[in-house]
């Protein structure tokens, strides 16, 4: 072993032993990853059920106030799979309190206006901010619009006019989204949650070995030892890696278990591949992020004077670094070689591909790893530079 490797091993071993005895380091490495997969699965199941449970097949319950004024409309609705319910005394309050998703109110003037061929007044009482009612509201609107169009066509025909004249455009809506489509958004957040897990997993070790060392007053005596600063930086960085990698591993293990226990395909409506091999692939692909995350945190922590200060700044890092990847949840992006160059984003793309059993281009994989490792190297060099300055003794500036 070269002297440098020996020194790095000494510092590495001390930091690992020291942090294994620290409740904060252990819990951030071992407990955070437990939370993420449960959070994700719960979101997918809740969203999959409430928003997009397949409503078309089921009869729509529609409370109607003044149903007696519009027998024709009622008959049309019943034909179209609607359960007409007696209307509540106060429709606004009923919608506000969530007793009804939508209430149809037919005014007493309806019959007279209808007879004279004038627009007959009806009201749909809705709350447009409540997303869980959106499907009900949309369906009630379409049915009433449909009735209106049917009657209009009949009236024109009775007057000898082709009803087609009113239809300028013939719009056919082809909705290719599966009813469960929106739940996929949450599945797409998995890479982001993994990135968070990696950052948090190593965070306390990084803080403890840098800002914590300064706060305890043990940094000054430590740096007097005949060890180049570079070796200290590398050893402390390496010491955080097992903690971050353990967090990633535990999270993936749990993701894998839960994905196989919960029939997720029913919720997300896509073919998914969640066997052990896929989870292992995701682990390998994410490893460069582990190094990058620790190096970034090392640089930021070198400026902070205390544990508390470091704890204030470090949690912003995964948010910033994970943001491009999080966009993937909402905007589909085609893989291209340039986006393989963006660290963390490229891994997010790859993780999504693995989960969907899509073919992964080896070139993309290679560039992704190389780009992320290069970025990590830059941060490591920056950390070494910062540790070689006198200011490292005092923090900040």
């Amino acid at each position: 072993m070269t002297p440098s490797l020996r020194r790095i091993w000494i510092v590495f071993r001390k930091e690992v032993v020291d942090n294994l005895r620290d409740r904060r380091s252990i819990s951030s490495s071992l407990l955070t990853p437990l939370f993420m997969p449960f959070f994700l699965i719960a979101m997918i199941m809740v969203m999959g059920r409430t928003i997009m449970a397949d409503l078309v097949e089921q009869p729509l319950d529609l409370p109607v106030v003044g149903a007696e004024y519009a027998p024709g409309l009622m008959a049309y609705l019943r034909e179209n799979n609607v359960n007409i319910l007696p209307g509540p005394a106060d429709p606004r309050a009923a919608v506000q309190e969530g007793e009804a998703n939508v209430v149809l109110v037919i005014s007493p003037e309806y019959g007279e206006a209808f007879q004279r061929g004038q627009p007959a007044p009806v009201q749909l009482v809705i709350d447009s901010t409540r997303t869980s009612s959106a499907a009900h509201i949309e369906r009630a609107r379409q049915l009433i619009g449909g009735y209106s169009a049917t009657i209009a066509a009949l009236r024109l025909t009775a007057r000898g006019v082709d009803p087609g004249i009113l239809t300028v455009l013939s719009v056919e809506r082809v909705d290719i989204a599966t009813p469960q489509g929106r739940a996929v958004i949450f599945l797409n957040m998995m890479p982001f949650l993994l990135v968070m897990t990696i950052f948090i997993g190593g965070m306390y070790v990084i803080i403890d070995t840098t800002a914590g060392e300064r706060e305890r007053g043990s940094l000054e005596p430590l740096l007097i030892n005949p060890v180049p600063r570079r070796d200290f930086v590398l050893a402390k960085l390496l010491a955080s890696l097992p903690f971050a990698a353990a967090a990633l591993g535990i999270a993936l293990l749990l993701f894998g278990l839960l994905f196989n226990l919960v029939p997720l395909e029913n919720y997300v409506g896509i073919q998914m591949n969640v066997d052990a091999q896929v989870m292992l692939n995701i682990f390998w692909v994410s490893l460069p992020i582990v190094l990058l995350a620790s190096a970034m945190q090392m640089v930021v922590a070198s400026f902070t004077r205390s544990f508390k200060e470091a704890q204030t700044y470090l949690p912003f890092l995964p948010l910033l670094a994970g943001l491009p990847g999080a966009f993937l949840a909402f905007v589909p992006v085609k893989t291209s070689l340039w986006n393989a160059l963006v660290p963390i984003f490229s891994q997010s793309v790859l993780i999504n591909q693995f989960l969907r059993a899509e073919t992964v281009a080896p070139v993309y994989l290679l560039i992704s790893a190389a780009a992320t490792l290069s970025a990590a190297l830059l941060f490591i060099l920056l950390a070494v530079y910062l540790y070689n300055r006198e200011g490292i003794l005092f923090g900040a500036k």
Partner: protein
Amino acid sequence: MITVSHLRKTFGKVTALRDVSFQAEDGRVTGLLGPNGAGKTTTLRILYTLLRPDSGTAAVDGADVTRQALEVQRSIGALPDSKGLYPRLTARENIRYYGELQGLSGRRLEERIGALADLLEMENILDRRTEGFSTGERMKVAIARALIHDPRNILLDEPTSGLDVMSTRSMRAFIRRLRDEGKCVLFSSHVMQEVSALCDTIVVISNGAVVIEGSAEQLLRATGQTSLEDAFVAALGSGEGLQQ
């Protein structure tokens, strides 16, 4: 042996050291006396390679502190201003860590830990985690880890601050013992009595410059005083920032 010549150091607009020169010989205790803020800690930090001087030179056993930092670090044992330990490690583990960083290992290291524990009367706390140690116990661990590699030059920054009377007495005895072994001991203090009681050579420092330097007799003669403490006050122009 430690040689310091015309050190100058500024932090932004603050001039910490203007002109500091002195020499600390082997087999002697050299005391840096001065009020707080005089530049004692900055001088020591330059000597143990944590700060680089703007100008001037400092050398330990002939090795330059800026150009031969690792060599200097191997030949000194330092008790700096911060004396923090690792609270989740035992006293033994704290000391062993520094020993390994100094290149010791195996039986030699363990024997050395045993010898220091014996010397510092700390066997009873050796295998306890240092969390909750008293100031005196912490100081013993800090000294043991600083001296684990048996360095020829020993630098101590305010080694008795916060210690009770008993601990202070044993610290003084320990410093004399190191001197008698032929070590070069340099320590800083703002306590006049301590410097008078211990030092063979006294360097009085104020506002980043050496005011007077020499043995007790030389200081008395130069200032025309009969007691050392009066000599310090006369040299500094005031006793402000010092402690009897």
